[in-house]
């Protein structure tokens, strides 16, 4: 229910330019779905990172920039038809792929309880330790880049 309303509001967001809360709703709702799937750690990370960091950034930027109703030119209306065609083609491709692989997905055995968080920590710090370290470098680069972009130009 909550997820549904979040998605709907996300779709409406661009139209009215007033209701931007949809995506925050969606972030929380997908955390609920992760809980339902037994991925507690990912759900917690989703709430902390999306609800706590990314959406606050978005809300701040929207507050600063005073986003209004978006305007359409004749070219952007013309681009609607090929865009719709592209979206329909993508949806058809995804639907065909799902329909083809339905049985193998459903037939997967349900392997009881797996210690989710313990297993994730084992994988991150043993199997994926180099990607994990590279991730910290990526965050460093992002922080530096955001700082450089946001600072006032000297004139």
């Amino acid at each position: 229910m909550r997820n549904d309303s979040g998605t709907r509001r996300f779709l409406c967001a661009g139209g009215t330019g007033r209701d931007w809360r949809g995506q925050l709703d969606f972030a929380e709702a997908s955390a609920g779905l992760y809980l339902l799937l037994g991925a507690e750690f990912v759900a917690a990370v989703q709430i902390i990172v999306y609800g706590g960091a990314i959406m606050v950034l978005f809300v701040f930027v929207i507050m600063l920039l005073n986003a209004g109703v978006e305007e359409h030119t004749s070219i952007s209306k013309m681009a609607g038809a090929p865009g719709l065609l592209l979206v329909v083609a993508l949806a058809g491709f995804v639907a065909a792929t799902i329909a083809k692989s339905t049985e193998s997905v459903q037939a997967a055995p349900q392997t009881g309880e797996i210690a989710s968080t313990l297993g994730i920590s084992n994988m991150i710090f043993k199997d994926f330790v180099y990607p994990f370290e590279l991730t910290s470098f990526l965050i460093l680069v992002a922080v530096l880049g955001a700082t450089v972009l946001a600072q006032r130009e000297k004139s």
Partner: protein
Amino acid sequence: MVPTNYYVILSAILFGLGVFAFIFKRNIITIFMSIELMLNAVNLAFVAFSQALGKLDGQVFVLFVIVVAASEAAVGLGIIILIARNRQTLNVERVDLLKL
């Protein structure tokens, strides 16, 4: 127990909505949000398959995707603020410095 199919279908629908908004919207913040929506859809598919196959690789990958999404949001919103400051608009069609 919800079947994995439903999660995958929901993920496909969300990804389609993200592509739809990405193509149709002209507001740069909405476009950015639709990118985040697509990343979320892929995350949902990852976790669903991770649970269906009984392996944790998908969940670990989701963590990496979230990290990339967070750093992307930080840099991207900085760029958006810069564009709005220099051009006084959020419409992507007005940002045509590289067009001939």
